[in-house]
């Protein structure tokens, strides 16, 4: 996030509050989403020196005026040396902001040889300027332009071990840009020994350099065949054995604490996001026992809940991923399921249930994980007020939400009769009744099962009332049915609408025909 300061400075130069900016950004987002679907989402980075800021925007207009001939002359000026060489190079760098100029330049005879020659030459200043020119070219989205830069790669890699942090950073981003989305280049730089060079760079104390290393490694890993060519076998185990889980979780805990106390900077989500993904996938990638020794700090659960709550508004995707990690922690784990209950995290999770796009489904998964552990867990979940929330989620539009709600409900109802009573008092059985006639099997079968097996008193009363109401059988067995009805009524205090109508009318009416005395209802 060292870069973030530079970015903000730049952003202020443009009109960020303007509608135009917002529209442009929305358009960009749309493009990114489509590109990601096509697995074509690749981003290059262009670094520009701060002192160029003010002139930057203006010069692009100027460079459009450069014609082929003028570029040739500029290149000749660069080639011929002398005192003006460096300033010519600087001009060239500015000219190369224009995509048209880039194309022209690579088409000129010897142009790239000249640049690479200067890059590898003895003048430090010219090296730097030449590197900037190559960097400009590397950020182009046109494949031909990138390809033209290939002769520079061995030098760029060599310079990674140099002392000048800014220069190293420039080389790293250039190499990263060239690798982006281009597997041929990537294979080439791998063969040219980029990995050992990166291993040296990453140990530098300079944060900007480290971030740049991160950029280029990300580009290398983004290729489709990365898992075969770059990532070693059993990478997860290796990472875990080196304490990745414990490092990442303790960072998440620290960040969670910072977020909870409001001590955060803008852009902190850029750090939280990858940490969540590391922990989430490391937990899923191997047996939990391997990670167990690194998961000794229960604050991780609290941190994940706080992150989900905090980022729900600005970045719901982050909230969702936080809940995903919580799922991976609690699945099949009595320890973490108990911890969720012990730390009273259930009410905070319940507050997330009204939100869709994967948030409520993930919360329900977590709660289901906890309920799955045993009846004692279900009892505590019920005490935490889960039943009223389920009565609402049962009525939601998303069938996945409803199915999960039914699953959790089944476990809660199966564990205690109080849960069943409370559920009926809340009017939940009506929702299940409605679901019996739903077109979707998953919902219909589960709802029917719950009504028949876990809410039998309710359905028994119902069937008896319907029996009386329909009165197809005017029969003498009414007396024993009546007794059953009264027993059920007194034992089960649920308010059922049918009771009043069926009983009041049908029974008293019916009995008046056969002249049986009825106790007062």
């Amino acid at each position, binding site marked *: 996030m060292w870069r973030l300061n530079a*970015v903000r400075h730049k952003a202020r130069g443009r009109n960020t509050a303007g509608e135009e900016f917002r529209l442009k950004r929305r358009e960009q987002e749309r493009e990114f989403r489509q590109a990601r679907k096509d697995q074509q989402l690749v981003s290059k980075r262009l670094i520009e020196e701060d002192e160029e800021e003010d002139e930057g925007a203006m010069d692009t207009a100027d460079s459009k005026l450069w014609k082929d001939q003028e570029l040739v002359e500029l290149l000749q000026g660069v080639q011929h040396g002398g005192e003006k060489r460096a300033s010519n190079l600087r001009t060239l760098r500015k000219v190369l902001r224009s995509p048209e100029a880039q194309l022209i330049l690579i088409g000129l005879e010897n142009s790239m040889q000249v640049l690479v020659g200067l890059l590898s030459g003895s003048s430090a200043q010219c090296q730097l300027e030449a590197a900037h020119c190559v960097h400009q070219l590397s950020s182009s989205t046109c494949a031909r332009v990138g390809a033209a830069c290939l002769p520079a790669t061995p030098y760029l890699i060599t310079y990674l071990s140099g002392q000048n942090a800014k220069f190293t950073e420039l080389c790293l981003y250039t190499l990263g840009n060239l690798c982006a989305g281009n597997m041929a280049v990537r294979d080439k730089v791998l063969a040219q020994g980029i990995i050992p060079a990166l291993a040296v760079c990453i140990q530098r104390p300079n944060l900007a350099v480290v971030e740049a290393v991160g950029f280029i490694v990300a580009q290398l890993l983004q290729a489709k065949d990365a898992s075969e060519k770059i990532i070693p076998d059993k990478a997860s185990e290796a990472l875990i054995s080196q304490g990745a889980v414990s490092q990442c979780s303790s960072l998440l805990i620290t960040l969670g604490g910072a977020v909870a106390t409001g001590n955060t900077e803008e852009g902190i989500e850029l750090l939280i996001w990858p940490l969540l993904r590391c922990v989430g996938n490391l937990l*899923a990638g191997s047996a939990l026992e391997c990670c167990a020794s690194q998961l000794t700090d229960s604050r991780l659960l609290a941190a994940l809940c706080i992150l989900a709550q905090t980022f729900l508004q600005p970045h719901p995707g982050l909230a969702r991923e936080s809940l995903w990690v919580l799922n991976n922690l609690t699945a099949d784990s009595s320890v973490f399921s108990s911890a969720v209950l012990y*730390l009273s995290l259930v009410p905070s999770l319940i507050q997330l249930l009204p939100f869709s796009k994967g948030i409520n489904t993930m919360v329900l998964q977590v709660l289901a994980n906890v309920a799955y552990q045993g009846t004692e867990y279900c009892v505590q979940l019920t005490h935490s007020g889960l039943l009223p929330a389920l009565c609402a989620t049962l009525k939601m539009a998303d069938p996945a939400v*409803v199915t999960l709600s039914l699953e959790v409900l089944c476990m809660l109802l199966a564990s205690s009769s109080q849960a069943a009573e409370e559920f009926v008092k809340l009017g939940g059985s*009506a929702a299940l009744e409605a679901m019996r*006639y739903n077109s979707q099997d998953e919902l219909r079968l589960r709802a029917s099962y719950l009504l028949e097996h876990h809410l039998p008193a309710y359905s028994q009363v119902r069937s008896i009332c319907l029996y009386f109401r329909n009165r197809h059988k005017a029969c003498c067995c009414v007396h024993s049915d009546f007794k059953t009805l009264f027993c059920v009524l007194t034992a089960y205090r649920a308010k059922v609408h049918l009771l009043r109508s069926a009983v009041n009318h049908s029974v008293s009416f019916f009995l008046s025909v056969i002249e049986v005395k009825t106790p007062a209802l």
Partner: protein
Amino acid sequence: MFRPDLVRFLTAAGAEEICVGSIPVLPVHPKPSELCSGIEESPSAFTFTPRRMRLDKDHDLFEDGDIHRHLYLRDSVAGMSELPQAPTVAEFRCHIAGCSQLFDTLESYEHHYDALHRRVCADCKRAFPSDHLLDIHIQEWHDSLFQLMAKKQNMYQCLVEGCDLKFKTSTERKDHLIKVHRYPSDFRFDKTKKNRRPPGGAPQRVEVSMEQGDEPGAGEPMEAEPAVQKRGDRLRPGYSYKVPASICFGQGSVRGFRGGRRRK
């Protein structure tokens, strides 16, 4: 915004408190999933098992985070204060088969359910705004003994709750409603049943009146909305609804009692 004890726990707790080992682990048996599992005749419909999810880098769950990162890479990140992405609130759906209406809030869903599905006659599927009216309807339209009884005594109840008068005929009752309770003569919930067969026969399929069309197809509950607001005002009910013939509403399940009529 956050529970203070949770914040304190995250930032200032002692070493023993934060140790996972210090948390008592609840006993894991019996598992409710075992109690949920079906008896031999009918295997359980419930299939949930906990599972850890490993997500590939291209997974949909990661889309938003990736987009955000690429906006940052391309120097397009505005501050968090700009362009917030609000989380989406879940919608509610009426689960009565054939209805499928969507609602933004739980209240609007409950309102819809109360108006159209809660008090529904099992036989003819008409919806009623109150228990009292539903009861009277069932008694007068679907009770085969009612006609018999009506010959001996006054059986037609006044529709107004709290007025306990009963009348010999529905006409008398209607007169009473108009004269005493000042009801309109075309009160929607005071229709007479048209008999095709002589009374005393088996209960027949009731012919539905014009306002309450009984066409197959999806319900159109939009017309119900005005009435919903006026539910308290019985003098102007003003709604109709269409319900597919094949639909059997929740509270009035008659599947066990009337075989062959239901198509599923």
